[in-house]
Each structure stands twice: as structure tokens, then as C-alpha cells.
């Protein structure tokens, strides 16, 4: 069935009668996400300066295989192809990357900023064909909840990293003692913001209680649903704050490891 269109305001990329700076928000998103992708890719390829004392960069944690003392299962495998680039980050970054890529908030944001689909509300688009998320490849976005399960495990690992960042080794005596450095606070802030983001996930909201219509009969689920809903209302804020801070945490550890920054001990 054909549906008549309005004669006015024909479609076309960027066509709109909006007089405001509608392009600003997608431009900021484009810049912010691009900057993060470039930095995180660069940092992942480095393979060095990702730990400093008790600190380990969140881009490299958990370090499954690697050369640092934080490695879980020893050094890089000897059978690794010599022509293939190696970094401990390659083994794990797919998980948080996939979680963010399939996140409901980011999807809406990058469809606008990167694909102009649409560029902004009530603004014309560059292409007529549209498949949406009901067809390949975007139907794969429905895998989001599986990335959520892995992201929840990562929260545990990163919390353990904060615990480890509380124990400093005396270089003279070799004794380990409790302490708090600026790096400890950086990593603790990182896991807090990631927690705010991950625990406010739309899929988690559904899984803990949203799928039920009789939550009054399930008090634990009802409480969990309320808590996740509370964080979910600030999902965009936590998405951006955690994105920035996870990059900054890597930068902090990296610059301390390179000797550019000094990690001040608070006590």
C-alpha cells in the first residue's frame, strides 16, 4: 500500500526547518566516541606501560596472559604467531567494547552521529533504504545481554584491582603494607562509574525484574528493579563519565609507568 507524503519539506540530507544548532549534539558524540576509539586502540596496541606497582590499567585487566606480575596464567604463549601483533589487551577488550557497542544508549547515539540515521530529530537523512535492527547486521545488537553477563564479571575483576591497589610493596624491605595512592582513587572512581553504567543497563533492568508483570509478589526482584531503574535514568551520564574515566585511568597508569607523572601517596 502506498502512503502519500506531504508536498512540503521534501526529504534530503540535513533538510529541516529547525533553526537551532541541531548538528551540535551528533558532532560532539562523533568527536567523543572517535577520540575514545582512537586512544583505546592505540593504548591496546602498545602492550607496555600498562601497570605500575599495584596498579594495572583497566584496558588490560584482567590480564590473562602477559609479562606483568598481574598476569593470571603466565606470559605470552610461545605458539603465538610472530607476524600477529600481540598485546594482553587483545584478549579482553572485545568484551567491554562489545558491551558498549550494543548498549541501547550508545546505539541511539552512534546511529545519529556516525550513520546520520537520522542526523538529529526531524532532520532529513542521506539515504532512503532502511533496515533497522530487525535485519542483519543490526539484528546482532540483540546479543547485548550476553555482553552484559561478561561486563558484570569485569566489574568483579576491576573491583579486585582496586583491592590490590591498596597494597604497596616497600622496595627496600620487600614488605607489603596498606596504603592509598592517587592511582588507587583513580581506579576506585573507575570501577564506581563503570558500576553506575553497567548496573543501569536496560537489559539488566529487564532481567532482574522488568520481564515480570507481578513484581509485588517478588520483593527482592522489585527492589533490584527499582535500583537498576534508578541508575537507568542516568544511563547516558554514566555512559559518558565511565567512558572518559576508563580512558583516563589507562592514561594515569601509563604516564606513571613511563615516569612522566608521579603517583602521590595519600597515606
Amino acid at each position, binding site marked *: 500500500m502506498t502512503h502519500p507524503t506531504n508536498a512540503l519539506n521534501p526529504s534530503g540530507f540535513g533538510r529541516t526547518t529547525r533553526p537551532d544548532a541541531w548538528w551540535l549534539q551528533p558532532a560532539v558524540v562523533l568527536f567523543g566516541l572517535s577520540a575514545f576509539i582512537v586512544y583505546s586502540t592505540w593504548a591496546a596496541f602498545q602492550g607496555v606501560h600498562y601497570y605500575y606497582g599495584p596498579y594495572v590499567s583497566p584496558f588490560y585487566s584482567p590480564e590473562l596472559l602477559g609479562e606483568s606480575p598481574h598476569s593470571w596464567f603466565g606470559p605470552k604463549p610461545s605458539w603465538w604467531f610472530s607476524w600477529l601483533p600481540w598485546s594482553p589487551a587483545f584478549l579482553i577488550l572485545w568484551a567491554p567494547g562489545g558491551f558498549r557497542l550494543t548498549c541501547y544508549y550508545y546505539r541511539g547515539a552512534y546511529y545519529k552521529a556516525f550513520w546520520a540515521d537520522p542526523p538529529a530529530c526531524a532532520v532529513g537523512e542521506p539515504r532512503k533504504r*532502511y533496515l533497522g535492527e530487525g535485519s542483519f547486521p543490526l539484528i546482532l545488537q*540483540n546479543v547485548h545481554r550476553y555482553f552484559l553477563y561478561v561486563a558484570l564479571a569485569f566489574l568483579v575483576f576491576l573491583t579486585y584491582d582496586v583491592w590490590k591497589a591498596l597494597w604497596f610493596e616497600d622496595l627496600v624491605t620487600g614488605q607489603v603494607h596498606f596504603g592509598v595512592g592517587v592511582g588507587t582513587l583513580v581506579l576506585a572512581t573507575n570501577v564506581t562509574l563503570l558500576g553506575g553504567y553497567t548496573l543501569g543497563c536496560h537489559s539488566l533492568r*529487564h532481567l532482574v525484574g522488568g520481564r515480570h508483570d507481578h513484581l*509485588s509478589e517478588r520483593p527482592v526482584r522489585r527492589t533490584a528493579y527499582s535500583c537498576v531503574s534508578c541508575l537507568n535514568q542516568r544511563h547516558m551520564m554514566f555512559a559518558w563519565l565511565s567512558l572518559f574515566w576508563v580512558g583516563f585511568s589507562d592514561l594515569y597508569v601509563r604516564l606513571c609507568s613511563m615516569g612522566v607523572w608521579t603517583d602521590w601517596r595519600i597515606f
Partner: protein
Amino acid sequence: MAQAIFRIWRGDSGGGEFRDYATEVTSGMVVLDVVRQIQAEQAHDLALRWNCKAGKCGSCSAEVNGMPKLMCMSRTSDLPLEKPVTVQPMKAFPLIKDLVTDVSWNYRVKKKIKPFRPRKPDEKDGTWRMAQSDVDRSMEFRKCIECFLCQDVCHVLREHRLLDEFIGPRFLVHIAALEMHPLDTENRLEDLRKEHGIGYCNITKCCTKVCPEDITITDNAIIPLKERVVDVSYDPIRRFLARYRRKASAVGLAS
């Protein structure tokens, strides 16, 4: 009092143009006041639809400076009056005349949605008992005044014209109200995926942005429905567990 220019679309399905009307704008006026003033003083044949002037009937939907809005809820004090203010009909629907569009497609879509089907009454007198907290969630969606601004701004309908494949945010909200209702027993999830095209929504949140009733359309209605569709169509583990529970229930292993 200020002089302002209102650039209003004049025409019908055969074509038309924007015409400028210079008029006085006084404190407290909304766009609907101005358009009616222009109709009374300068353009007696200007067609517009309005009724309550209180943001509750959903009749005066239009696009003010390019954004779908209720004219009666658009304060002139929020507009940059030093530039011409554009007022045009909703783009997603066929134009009848000037600011009036034919929104009957929406009524036809609504008929395709499976209606409310309550469980058997809880009491002998034919009544039900339900917790307020359970019904609160769907009450948000009952605030909808069917102004169809969300349908107008949705790029799937507005730009891609997929009116046969996608029912639009208004009716996803309607289905959410039914699906999440504690008494409802109907299952609309398969329809949502196939007939109603929920997969076309790519979560731009424009519908939420323009809703005059501040319904959190995307986060509270569409995404939860998408997740329910994932449960039954795209999540193999949940489908396996659901099948296992059904079998266990059949042989009396589970409640």
C-alpha cells in the same frame, strides 16, 4: 508586546507554500494563540485543528520551528522572535489543508493490535485484585493523549515511510501498557517482531523528546518490549530455560 513574523504553511495535498504573517505577540501567548490571531485578522481561510488549548486533547499538533509540538503548549517566550517562526503541519501524515493532516492511518493501525484480555475474575462478583505497584508501571503509558507527535518525529515513518511495516512509538506505548498490565493474559510478542516491526526502532529517542506528556517512551516502553522480544526470539538460553520450565511444570517438578 512585540512584532513577530510567523511563517505558516498554506496549501493542500496538491502543493502550497510558506507565507509570512507579521503580527503582535503579547506576554503569555502560545503559538496557537498567535495562529488563531492571524486566522482572525489576516487569513480567515487558514485551516487548523484545535480543541482544549490545555495540552490534553492532542488536536493542535504541528511543527514549530521544525520540531513536532502542540501549538497550545509552545510558549512564544521560548521562541527566538527576532527570526521568523515556522509553523507547518506534521510531515509524517497526508496533508488535508494548511496545518491539518489526515491522521486516520493511526486509527487503522490500532485496530490491528490484540486488545486487552484479562484473566478470569479473582472474585465471585466478577472483580479482580491487583497491587497498585504492579499497575503503576503501565499507568505512565495511559497518559498518552494521541497527539501523534511521536509518530511524526519517528524517522522510520517520517523519512522512510515504512507505514505498512512499523506501527510507530505511539502504538508500541499502547502495547507496552497492555503487555505490562498485571491482569492481561494476551501474548503480543510474536506480533511485535513480525507484524508490528519493533526491530525498525533504532532507539533515537526522538519520540521521548517530543512527547508533551513526558512519557519516557523509549526507555520505559520500547526497550522493555524489545527485551521481551529478545527473550522469546533471540536468546537461546532463555528459550531453553523456558522450554525446560514448561516440561518440568508438566511433570510436576516445578511450581
